[in-house]
C-alpha cells in the first residue's frame, strides 16, 4: 500500500487531479457553509457581471448568485457521478466476472446481453429512460448506470479470461479451493487495477452525461445543476455570457481532475505503459 502511495505521489498528473478533486469534494460538502441557504433565492441585482461587489461570478437574469449555484451544483454532479458509477461497477464487475470465469453458454448469454446495451446509442437511451420515468435523482442515476456498465463488464471479462488460465489460479484449483474463493481471492485482486482506472474515467463520463441531460431540461428540478445553469443561460448569451460560461468551466475542471486522477492511477498501476520514463 505504501509503495503504491509513494509512486502515486510522484505522478504529476495524478497529484494535480487528486488535489483538485479534494477541493471540489470539500466545496461540495461545505456548500451550505460557504453559501448558506437556497441557491435559487434572489439575492442581488440581475445580470451583474463576474467580479462585481459581493458576487464573484455575478448574478443571473433573476438576480440569483451564480457562485452559489456553482457550489451547490457541485454536490449534485459529484453525487450523481459517484452513485451511478458505483451501481455500474457493481453490475459490470459481476456480469464480467461470471462471464469471464465460467465461459460456455453463460458467457455467450451475458455477452449478447452486454452487446445489446452497447449497440443502443447510449445518450439517447439515457434521454429516453429519464424522459419516460420522469427526471428524479433516482431515475437519473439509474439511467446513467444503465448506459455505463457494459465497458466495465467487457473489461472485467477480458481480465478474468486471461487470469483464469494463469498457473497460480490452477494451483489454487488443485489445492481444492472453492470456485467462489478463487474468484474472490485469486482472480479479482489481480483484475482490479484496470477496473479502478476505468472507474475514475467513468465518474467523469457520468458527470458529462448528467450535465448533458440537465442542459436538455431532464435534470431533477428540485436541485440546481451546472447543466441546467448552462441551459438557462443560453438565452442570455449575448448579454450575460458568464451565465453559461462559468458553469461549463466548473464541469470542465471537475472532469479534468477526474481524468488526471485516472491517468495518475494508470501510471502507477501499469508502469510499463507510461512510455516517458522507459529504460
Amino acid at each position, binding site marked *: 500500500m505504501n509503495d503504491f502511495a509513494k509512486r502515486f505521489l510522484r505522478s504529476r498528473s495524478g497529484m494535480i487531479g487528486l488535489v483538485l478533486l479534494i477541493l471540489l469534494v470539500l466545496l461540495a460538502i461545505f456548500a451550505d457553509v460557504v453559501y448558506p441557504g437556497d441557491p435559487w433565492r434572489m439575492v442581488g441585482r440581475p445580470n451583474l457581471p463576474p467580479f462585481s461587489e459581493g458576487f464573484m461570478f455575478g448574478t443571473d437574469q433573476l438576480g440569483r448568485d451564480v457562485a452559489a449555484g456553482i457550489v451547490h451544483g457541485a454536490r449534485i454532479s459529484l453525487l450523481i457521478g459517484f452513485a451511478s458509477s458505483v451501481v455500474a461497477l457493481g453490475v459490470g464487475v459481476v456480469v464480467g466476472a461470471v462471464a469471464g470465469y465460467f465461459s460456455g453458454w453463460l458467457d*455467450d448469454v451475458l455477452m449478447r446481453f452486454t452487446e445489446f446495451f452497447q449497440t443502443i446509442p447510449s445518450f439517447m437511451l439515457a434521454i429516453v429512460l429519464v424522459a419516460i420515468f420522469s427526471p428524479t435523482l433516482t431515475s437519473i442515476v439509474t439511467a446513467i448506470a444503465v448506459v455505463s456498465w457494459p465497458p466495465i463488464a467487457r473489461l472485467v471479462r477480458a481480465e478474468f479470461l486471461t487470469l483464469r488460465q*494463469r*498457473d*497460480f489460479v*490452477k*494451483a*489454487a*484449483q*488443485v*489445492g*481444492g*479451493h472453492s470456485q467462489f*474463493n478463487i474468484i474472490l481471492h*485469486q482472480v479479482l*485482486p*489481480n483484475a482490479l487495477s484496470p477496473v479502478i482506472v476505468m472507474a475514475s474515467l467513468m465518474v467523469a463520463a457520468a458527470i458529462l452525461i448528467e450535465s448533458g441531460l440537465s442542459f436538455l431540461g431532464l435534470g431533477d428540478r428540485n436541485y440546481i445543476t451546472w447543466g441546467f445553469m448552462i441551459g438557462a443561460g443560453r438565452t442570455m448569451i449575448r448579454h450575460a455570457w458568464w451565465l453559461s460560461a462559468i458553469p461549463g468551466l466548473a464541469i470542465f475542471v471537475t472532469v479534468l481532475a477526474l481524468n488526471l486522477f485516472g491517468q495518475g492511477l494508470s501510471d502507477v498501476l501499469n508502469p510499463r505503459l507510461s512510455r516517458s520514463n*522507459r*529504460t
Partner: protein
Amino acid sequence: MISQALKPVINIRDLSIALPQGADRAFAVQDLTLDLNRDEILCVVGESGSGKSLLAGAIMGLLPQGVTISSGTINFGDQNLTELSETAYRKVRGARIAMVFQEPMTALNPVLTVHEQINEALVAHGVRDSAERNSRILELLDATGLPDPATLQHRYPFRLSGGQRQRAMIAMALALEPDVLIADEPTTALDVTTQKQILELLRDIQRQRQLAVLFITHDFGVVAEIADRVAVMQFGELVEEGRAADVLDRPKHPYSQRLIAAVRGMSETARPVAPQIENPILSIRGATKTYSAGKSGFWSNSKRRIKALDNVSLDVGQGETLGIVGESGSGKTTLGQSVVQLVDLDSGEIRYRGQSIQAMDRKTRAQMRPKIQIIFQDPYASLNPRHRISRALTETQMIHGTPRKDALLRAQNMLDLVGLEKSALDRYPHEFSGGQRQRIGIARALVMDPDLIVADEAVSALDVSIQAQVLELLADIRKRLNLSMLFITHDLRVAAQVCDRIAVMRRGEVVEIGQAAAVLENPQHEYTRLLCDSMPGLDWFANHPMENVG
C-alpha cells in the same frame, strides 16, 4: 603478416556496452575482445543476463533505448561500426551483416506476405529489376527447404508453422548474400525435431556460402552440434574462448565446466533398474480427451477437433519417477492436468491407489485432492503476485482445516526443505529470482504432504545451471519423502537424468514406454529414434566421455 583471407571478418576490441541508470549492473558487456572469422560458426554461449544478445545488437547497431556502446571498437572489414552514421549503417544491415531472431511467431510482420517482406529488403538495397527479385526470392525459399515456394511466398506468416517461419527468416537474411550471419537463439522456441532440421540447414548454408556465422545460444548441446569455435560469456565478460572441441573436452573456466557438466550429465543415463509396479500408486486406463477449437455454437460450423489424449494407459509405481516426453501437441500437458483433475477426461479412468477418481463422490474427491499435487513450468506465473509467500504456502492447508499456527510451521519446514530462508514468508513473489520461485512452487506442492507430484515442465523455463540445482533438489526430496512423480518434459536429456521409466508421447498416444536407459540407448519406435537423434550434441557427448575435471 596476416593475409587478407585469414583476417577476421569481424574484429571486436575492448567493447563495453553501458546499461541505463537503474539497471542491475552498470555494463551489459565489459571489455570484450572477440574475433569472428570467415567460413566458420562461432557460438556465443551464455545464460540470461550474460549480455550475449546485446552483443549481437551492438554489432548490428540496433541497441535498445538507453543502452549505448561506451568504449571499444567493432571492426568490419575496414570500417569501424561503432563510428558509423545511421545512413551508412543501413547499407551494412541486411546486405553485409544479416540477422535471424529467436521468436519466429513475432519476428515477421503479420500483415505482409513472405514475398513482400523479402522483396522490400531487395528493393531497399538497390536490386531494381523486379524479375531478378522474383527469381531470387524463389531460389532463396527453395534453398532453405520450404515446400512449394511459388505458392508459399504469397502466404501471410500466420499460415506458416514455426519451423517454416524460421526458414523464411533465414531466406530473408540471405537475400543479399551477406558476409556475416548473426543468429540470436534461432532454434530456442522450436520443437527439438524442428530444431535439428534448422541447425542442419544453417550448417549446410554456412558451408555452401562460406559464411561467417555468429550463433548465440544458451545450450551447450547445440554448441556440440554445430560450432567450430566457442565463446562463453558470463555477466557481460568473456570467460572462455577457443575451438569447440577443445572447450567441450577440456573447459578451463569453472563456469564453462559447470555448464558443460550440466548438459553432459543429462546425456548420461545412469538410472538404476526401476522398482516393480505391482501396486501402482497411479493407474491410467484408456484416457481420452478431445478439444474442439474454434467457436462452437448455433451459428458456427467451424470446429477443429483436436485429440489431445487418445486411449492412453500408464502406471506409476510407488516411489517411481515416470517421465512423459513429447513435443508440443503430444498431449503430455493434458495428461498431467487430467491427473490433478484440472481437466476432465471424455472417457477412460484414472485410479489413485486402486480407487477410480472418476467414480468418487465429491466429498471423497475433495479429500484425496491434496494427495496429488503439481509444479508448473513458468516460475513467473505460478505464484499470485498479490499474495505473500506465507499465504501461498498456508492458504491451502487452512482451507483443509489446519489451524494457522500449524500451517505456518509446516510452511517454514517446507521452505527449509527447498533451501530457502524463513524470512521468505513475508515477501512477495517479485522479490525472488526464477529459480527461487520454482523452489517456492515445489514447497507449495509439498506442503500438503502429497503422494504423487506432477512436474509439468518444471525446469524448462530455467537457466541451465539453475536447472541442475532444481533437479538435484527434486531428486533429494523424492528420496527423502519417497514421492512418486510424473515428470513431464520435452527434453529427453533431462528426462533421462531424472526418470526411472520414460513414456514417449506423440499426438495423444504413447508410442513407447520403458526403462529410461533402454529407451535412450535402444529406442524401438521410429519417433523415439527421431527424438533421440534430434537431441543436439548427443553424438558428441556420447563419444567424448568426460575427462577428470577438478
